[in-house]
């Protein structure tokens, strides 16, 4: 557990520090790199929270795609880059998020979160950790799940099952959304009328 805590705090420091860097450094290129670092750190959190699949997705999409996009964008607009100057809204931009943060922190501490009850704790761990594919029997047995009904339940509780089952509609919508974003980006990239 100590190692876990240590890892958590290390990642936390890295994540927050890098995030602050993203919004503070003048050089956009460095900001983009720091952003990638934040993404990686968040992926680390995911791992810590047994969301391995998400961690993978995070790395693939955020670090692998989005960061690259940002870097491209930064480079393409290099010629007009006046640096990443702050605008004139510094005071409200600090005060308001700070207030919001205070509210969030207050909420986080004053809320009586319902913990996962003990009988299901183990199952939940298992389901979350093994979220990608079917859970293998040995793992089940290690977790002390012997009831066949429970076993099959756990086995059927995969992210993929959810995405194609209970959440199939948003899944389908996302596909349309991606298509729309693609087409939109393409259409915007076509250039001015007459110019191309």
């Amino acid at each position, binding site marked *: 557990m100590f190692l876990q805590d240590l890892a958590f705090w290390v990642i936390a420091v890295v994540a927050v520090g890098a995030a602050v860097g*993203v919004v503070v450094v003048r050089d956009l290129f460095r900001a983009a790199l720091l952003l990638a670092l934040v993404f990686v750190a968040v992926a680390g959190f995911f791992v810590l929270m*047994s969301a391995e699949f998400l961690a993978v997705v995070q790395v693939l999409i955020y670090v692998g795609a989005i960061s690259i996009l*940002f870097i491209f964008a930064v480079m393409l607009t290099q010629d007009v880059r006046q640096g990443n100057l702050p605008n004139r809204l510094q005071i409200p931009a600090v005060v308001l*998020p700070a207030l919001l943060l205070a509210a*969030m922190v207050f909420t986080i501490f004053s809320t009586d979160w319902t913990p996962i009850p003990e009988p*299901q704790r183990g199952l939940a761990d298992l389901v979350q950790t093994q979220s990608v594919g079917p859970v293998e029997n040995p793992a089940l047995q290690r977790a002390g799940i012997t009831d066949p009904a429970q076993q099959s339940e756990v086995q059927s509780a995969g992210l993929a099952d959810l*995405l194609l089952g209970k959440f199939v509609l948003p899944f389908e919508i996302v596909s349309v959304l991606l298509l729309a974003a693609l087409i939109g980006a393409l259409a915007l990239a076509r250039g001015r009328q007459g110019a191309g």
Partner: protein
Amino acid sequence: MSLEAMLIIAALLFCIGLYGALARSNVIAVLMSIELMFNGVNLTFVALARYVAPAAIQESIASVLTGQVFAVFVITVAAAEIALGLGIVFAMYRSNGTVDLTQVAEMRN
């Protein structure tokens, strides 16, 4: 490591992102900050999924994955949003010749 710690880190990320979104003048930096906010949200989702009992936990153990599912969708949408956002940034860059939001304020009262 606890739920509260995790949530606070997430909230911090979110608010730092929010600050950046409000206070940076370069549109790319603003988009980056918005990504920070999404990451904060995702952390929150996953942490909640990890530590907080879903209402339907008695009926279906799979419901403990709901937060993660949400996070998956958020990541995807964020990607789409950034793709389109950068498209618009390029369009703006070409037509207005700048990526500085303080200079893109032609329309006002």
